[in-house]
């Protein structure tokens, strides 16, 4: 149900895959992920954004740090899918209310 193409596209970049794999052993900050990677922190942040948009990675604030995690069950992807689904469904619902109100 989560868009497999989007997931694969997110993982198709080798550096992005490295970023993703660095999170396999647990949550890390951007600085920790960037360490020993041949790319800048802003580049790592950009990769994390793509992974997050694909629902592969979540983040949360821990004190002053922002820590990134792999969602072990892919629930971020599920949630993202449901979020989009309800947007579409409620827009159609609102249209139907207007339409059927016009009739009565």
């Amino acid at each position, binding site marked *: *149900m*989560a868009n497999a193409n989007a*997931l*694969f596209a997110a*993982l*198709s970049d080798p550096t992005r895959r490295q970023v993703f794999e660095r999170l*396999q*052993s*647990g*949550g890390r900050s951007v600085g920790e992920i960037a360490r020993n990677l041949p790319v800048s922190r802003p580049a790592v942040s950009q990769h994390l954004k793509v992974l997050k948009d694909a629902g*592969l990675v*979540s983040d*949360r604030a821990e004190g002053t740090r922002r820590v990134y*995690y*792999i*969602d*072990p*069950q*892919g*629930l*971020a992807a*599920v*949630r993202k899918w*449901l*979020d989009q*689904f*309800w*947007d*579409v*469904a*409620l*827009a*159609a*619902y*609102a*249209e*139907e*209310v*207007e339409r*059927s*109100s016009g009739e009565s």
Partner: protein
Amino acid sequence: MDQRIKPAPVRKSVRVNASPQKAFDVFTAGIGRWWPKSHHICKADLDTHVIEPRTGGRWYERGVDGVECDIGKVLVWEPPARLVLAWQLNPDWTFDPDLITEVEVLFIADGANATRVELEHRNLERMGERADAMRQQIDSPNGWGALLQLFAQTVSQERSAS
């Protein structure tokens, strides 16, 4: 990995030019007229959607071949103000009677003949708990580990094809 992330509920709000009663009726009795036809769980194309109008009522879809497929049930039926549905679909889009995620819909009067409809889809983490339970029996395809494997296979197939 024991790290667990609890997904936030999905929250949506929409304002419609109708009374709460009308808004409630269209949401429930009229669900077959607005539910996106592209989203169905029966094998056949979607014919209609049904929410039985009572607490404990079924929520299901019917395919054009007449086969009914459960989506969930009605947990709270309080027209015209409140509706709570159980969404019992797994992340792999199959009905699971032991899974209950809640969809609460509030119909709040907002001026004359207008209603604010607030929807919250919550307990999404239970999908993960059920996925864990099933993984003990079969290797669930929902985890990211399986996803990476699938990705690796796809890449290697493309490489060998080129």
